[in-house]
């Protein structure tokens, strides 16, 4: 199986996205049971904005993270490119 070689600088970016998403999932679950916490909502929205930019930087190296039109494709279609998450 030939896999796309990812440059060294990709890995810290991926970890930063994982860390950012951790903040977001924690705030999501917290807000599900604390819907009036204004400070948490503000932090959620700030991280959601940062996440949007970070995702684009990760995709420059890795290709599309999502499908159904939530990511753009290069030519040829690169959604199916290895490595998949369990191969990294």
């Amino acid at each position, binding site marked *: 199986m030939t896999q796309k070689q990812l440059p060294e600088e990709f890995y810290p970016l991926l970890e930063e996205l994982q860390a950012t998403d*951790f903040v977001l999932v924690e705030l999501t*679950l917290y807000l599900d049971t604390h819907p009036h916490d204004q400070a948490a909502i503000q932090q959620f929205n700030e991280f959601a904005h940062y996440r949007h930019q970070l995702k684009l930087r990760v995709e420059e190296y890795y290709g599309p993270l999502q499908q159904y039109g939530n990511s753009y494709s290069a030519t040829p279609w690169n959604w199916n490119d290895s490595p998949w*998450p369990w191969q990294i």
Partner: protein
Amino acid sequence: MWFYEKKLQYPVRVKECNPMLAKFLIEQYGGADGELSAALRYLNQRYSIPDKVVGLLTDIGTEEFAHLEMIATMIYKLTKDLTGEQMREAGLGGRYTDHDNGLFYENTDRTPWTAAYVQAKGDPIADLYEDIAAEEKARATYQWIINMSDDPWINDSLKFLREREVVHSQRFREAVEIIKEDQNTKKVF
């Protein structure tokens, strides 16, 4: 509708194959208190639970699928490139005979996953207590596996998953209070 994101929720690093550890981890893949059971339990309960906690069940249920992918990744990496003989020596001969290195939803003793693991009573308090218990059982299972594992990389990922169970349990406890408050309010009218 769901979206798949092409990344793990938390890194899974494996330095060396360890089929014995993989055998134990399958419990969290297709066992009673594993991640598949968790995801299907919460997402299925959403349809009969009061609106106020549907978001929580949706979000935790979705996160469980990310955990399922992390467990699959551990098993995949721990058994990759092993020979049949190595699988047999680790007590995985039966599994290898049936599936080679294909994953199967079963527990560590090879009992196939069953819908009987997923309770749905249709009563919000009963269902949420079920969910709290499920999270605590999953937390305990992660702890027992960590106790048996000497792989620092896998243990790092397992400790992340163990802590997620603690957070989920906490959120479900809060959901119980939200439901109780709601039920008490309704009595006033």
